[in-house]
């Protein structure tokens, strides 16, 4: 049933993708009329007397950036549903939570009303808590609560900023305060003298109010991305979660963070985003290098993949920080690509874990001999992830770095050494992926569990192949024809870059 639901969803999103119009007139970002598939229904309209009316709309719509992530999301959800075959206990509960989560992530990518965005954003937490906590591994309680507390910490402060923004912004048409994100992007809609108004230069505890707002929102999303040093929940959550949940976590949840930074931080606080771009870039570079170095040191396959996610998401931040068309396109591309790749990697890690309930990298040796098909897919996934040209990750990383290099000459936000360090991250990525591959798959067969494991480690079955083949194909296709993504996002990215330059 859940599989059917996700398939229908995929079908719908592909239909939307095909019908998605491109062209300068559909840039989105800060023009309400340029979003597509908009649905705007009044939701909460409260008359609060002296304060005017409270206006919260059910306002969803898509632009280039959200459409690409939406398609990726629905695809990953199908894979996750397929991976759920390994769940044996309490299926009803699992799929109820799974579909709630599905609704929440889709909602986040579509909503253009900050209140609605926040509701969906928070709604992800509870199902995930139970999904990790009830079906997870040995340390699942710890991992689940850590994840929950981290994210809630970010989002309650986001709530404060959201309320602040709401009280500063007035809908020019109705004259009410509004949560409409598109209108929050227009400085003219801010009430004169309000806390977050661009012109009034208010301060909070001696710091510029807008800077405080930006930093708070950035921290909330940085926890999700995750950006070093706020990443410590990620290895625990990813390792302890069951495979389908790891897939959703790595494939979709991390993108919510990146998407939030683009949609909220950058678009609502463009002035601060430009001023602080250096620090964003720096955090991005630190994430790339720190994540990669940690991945090198891991002994657990899933933990290694989790740290590689930290590293790869660093490229996203670097690309966003560059604020060039290339960088932001690269960041979105990297998010899409990483969505598919991390799905594939976690699925593959799940395959081996299901068979022998062990993921220690040094507990396996010579898997290529007993599981040739599995090894083939693993090689594709590893090479794609380390940025081999021809695969999607290459395009994403290359464009992010290109943006970072170009940034120095275009807008002077990021120095050259950041891009250089980012490139070093790719090198480290190659190191840990290749080294893992060499340790696990090549050489003589030597398993920790001996002969018992050898019989247990059967090659891929049909379901697993059905799951993996489309993933591998998509990664390849996106690498060869990046225009599939770029064509859709280009107008939005250009509009965003123009918007940022205009503001800063």
């Amino acid at each position, binding site marked *: 049933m859940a599989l059917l639901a996700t398939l229908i969803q995929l079908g719908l999103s592909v239909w939307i993708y095909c019908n998605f119009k491109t062209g300068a007139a559909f840039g989105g970002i800060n023009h309400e009329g340029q979003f597509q598939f908009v649905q705007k229904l009044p939701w*909460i*309209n*409260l*008359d*609060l*007397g*002296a*304060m005017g009316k*409270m206006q919260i709309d059910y306002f969803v719509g898509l632009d280039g950036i959200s459409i690409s992530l939406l398609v990726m999301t629905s695809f990953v959800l199908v894979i996750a549903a397929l991976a759920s075959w390994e769940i044996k206990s*309490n299926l009803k*509960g699992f799929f109820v939570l799974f579909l709630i989560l599905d609704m929440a992530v889709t909602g986040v990518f579509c909503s253009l009303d900050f209140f609605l965005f*926040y*509701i969906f954003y*928070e*709604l992800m*937490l*509870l199902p995930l*808590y*139970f999904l990790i*906590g*009830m079906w997870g591994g040995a340390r*699942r*309680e710890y991992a*689940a*609560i850590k994840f*929950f*507390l981290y994210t*809630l*910490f970010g989002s*309650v*402060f986001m*709530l*404060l900023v959201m*309320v*602040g923004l*709401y*009280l*500063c912004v007035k809908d020019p048409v109705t004259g009410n305060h509004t949560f409409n994100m598109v209108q929050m992007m227009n400085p003219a809609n801010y009430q004169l003298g*309000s*806390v977050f108004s661009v012109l009034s230069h*208010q301060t*909070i*505890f001696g710091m510029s109010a807008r800077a405080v707002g930006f930093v708070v929102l950035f921290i909330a999303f940085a926890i999700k991305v995750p950006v070093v040093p706020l990443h410590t929940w990620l290895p625990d959550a990813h390792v302890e979660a069951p495979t389908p949940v790891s897939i959703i976590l790595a494939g979709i949840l991390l993108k919510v963070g990146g998407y939030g930074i683009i949609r909220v931080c950058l678009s609502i606080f463009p002035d601060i985003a430009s001023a602080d771009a250096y620090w964003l870039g720096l955090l991005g570079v630190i994430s790339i290098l720190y994540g990669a170095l940690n991945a090198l040191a891991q002994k657990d396959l899933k933990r290694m993949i989790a740290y590689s996610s930290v590293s790869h998401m660093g490229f996203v931040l670097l690309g966003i920080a560059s604020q060039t068309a290339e960088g932001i396109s690269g960041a979105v591309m990297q998010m899409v690509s990483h969505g598919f790749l991390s799905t594939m990697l976690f699925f593959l890690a799940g395959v081996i874990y299901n068979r022998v309930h062990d993921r220690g990298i040094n507990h396996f040796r010579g898997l290529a001999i007993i599981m040739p098909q599995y090894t083939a897919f693993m090689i594709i996934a590893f090479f794609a992830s380390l940025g081999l040209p021809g695969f999607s990750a290459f395009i994403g990383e290359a464009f992010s770095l290109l943006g970072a290099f170009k940034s120095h000459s275009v807008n002077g936000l990021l120095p050259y050494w950041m891009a250089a360090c980012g490139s070093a991250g790719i090198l480290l990525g190659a190191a840990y992926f290749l080294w893992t591959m060499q340790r696990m798959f090549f050489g003589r067969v030597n398993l920790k569990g001996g002969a018992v494991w050898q019989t247990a480690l059967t090659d891929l079955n049909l379901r697993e192949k059905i799951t993996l083949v489309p993933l591998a194909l998509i990664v390849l296709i996106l690498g060869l024809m990046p225009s599939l993504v770029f064509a859709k996002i280009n107008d939005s990215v250009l509009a965003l870059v123009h918007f940022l330059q205009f503001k800063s």
Partner: protein
Amino acid sequence: MIRYLRWYIFYSLNLKQMHDLLPFLPESINNVLSSIPYFMPEIYLAILFVVVLVTDLLFGRDAIKLCRIIACAGILLVIHRDYQQFDLLLFTAEPNGHFFFTQMLLLTPVAINFKFIIDVLAFILLLYFAWDDKLNAHPKGLSDLYSIIIGSVFGLHFMTMAANLLSVYLAIEMVSIASYLMVAYRSESASSTEAGLKYVLFGAASSAIMLFGISLLYGFSGSLGLYSGNLVIGLAQVNPLAVSFALVLVLIGIGFKLSFVPIHFWVPDVYQGASTPVTAWLSTLPKIAAFALLINFLRPFIFYNNWTAFDFRFYLAIIGIITMIAGNFAAVLQKNIKRMLAYSSIGHTGFALMAIVTFTPTGLSALTYYLAAYGLANIGALALATYFANVAGAEDLDAYKGLGLKYPAASVCFVIVLVSLTGIPVTAGFTGKLFVFSAVYSFYQQNHNALLLLLMITGALTTVVSLFYYIKIPLNLFLKRSDTVANPFVKSYYIIALAICISIVLVLLGIFPGLIMGKI
């Protein structure tokens, strides 16, 4: 005793002066008569109280069911009367309220809202009392308890309307006496007897302190009416330190009911020791009414421009911050469900004080909404605590292990209720928090007081802390495996039905807060 003596003297003096007052009598009678329409819900409550009491006396032990039916039906009638009072205020075109009984009581829209909430919650509680197995096992039966509850609701109504220091005191005493009886109604162990005694002693002490404060205020200003006479004007001219002292004493009396820090120490023991439904009563109704009372008490001071002696906003903000921190952090350490909920209710008091600090119309309606959401969720949580105590004998967190899969409906409801208490979407608790935050924020935009920011930051931080302990219940229900021998499956439908209704309402209010927020 001394207190009653004082009353006696007061009244006998009045009798002697009676003949001087004769010319004024018709006017007073007219005043009383014209006040009666504004007093209809309370008259109904008084009649209901007598009817339940008499039924209990006439039919004795067999009348428990009958008492319950009468009490519930009566409360529904009272709710209906409350509803009519909205029209009454509209009809007389007095949107800011109407004084009656020679300015002893004041009926405002805020008061009606609070009465409405109190009565609805009281109705739920009346249903719920009989479903607690331990309480139900009381040899004398519950029919007395029903009349006590009706009596207490009568007092609570007074609290929401009191506009004179005398009526403030009377109302609080009326509620206190009812709650002493309820807390000590059934004592199952030494610790719960101790809790009952503690409650009486602390309650008596705090009301004595409050009375002392009131007498000082009277001495300073020569007036008892909060709105009439020259209480505030008179106080503004007295030495600020002395006035502050008297006001602090009165606040202690109100604070005892609100249970804010530092007068919260009685809460954990009493909440844990009392029967669970009584805890549900204690943690919601008197608290909600005390907030209404606090509003009535503060209003004249806040709106008197020359008032400088005691900055209520500042001190309440400080108390709010400390209360939020103390309540929430202490709750983290608790193992007993009721004790944990007790500390968490202290934390909620702190959060609600945040809305009082603004004292704007939006702030007050946010407060009303927040308290309604809190009351409903807290009753739900304690009802479910009763449920698990009934079916599995579980009172500590450890005993909840693995019960989630055995009693899925109740456990899912528990999660929803706790999510609402934490304030995560999509529940009434979240929208309540949102309204309070936005009220405080808009107040902050007017005066840029850093203390308000600090309040909001504390509110946000303690939300995270509160998640940490609330989530322990689902953690034990679902995530931990039971390590004891499975006890036999016991069925208990009523509480589940109640919990499901409460959960649905909480979620519904989370999605459409306008259902009640638009009306308050």
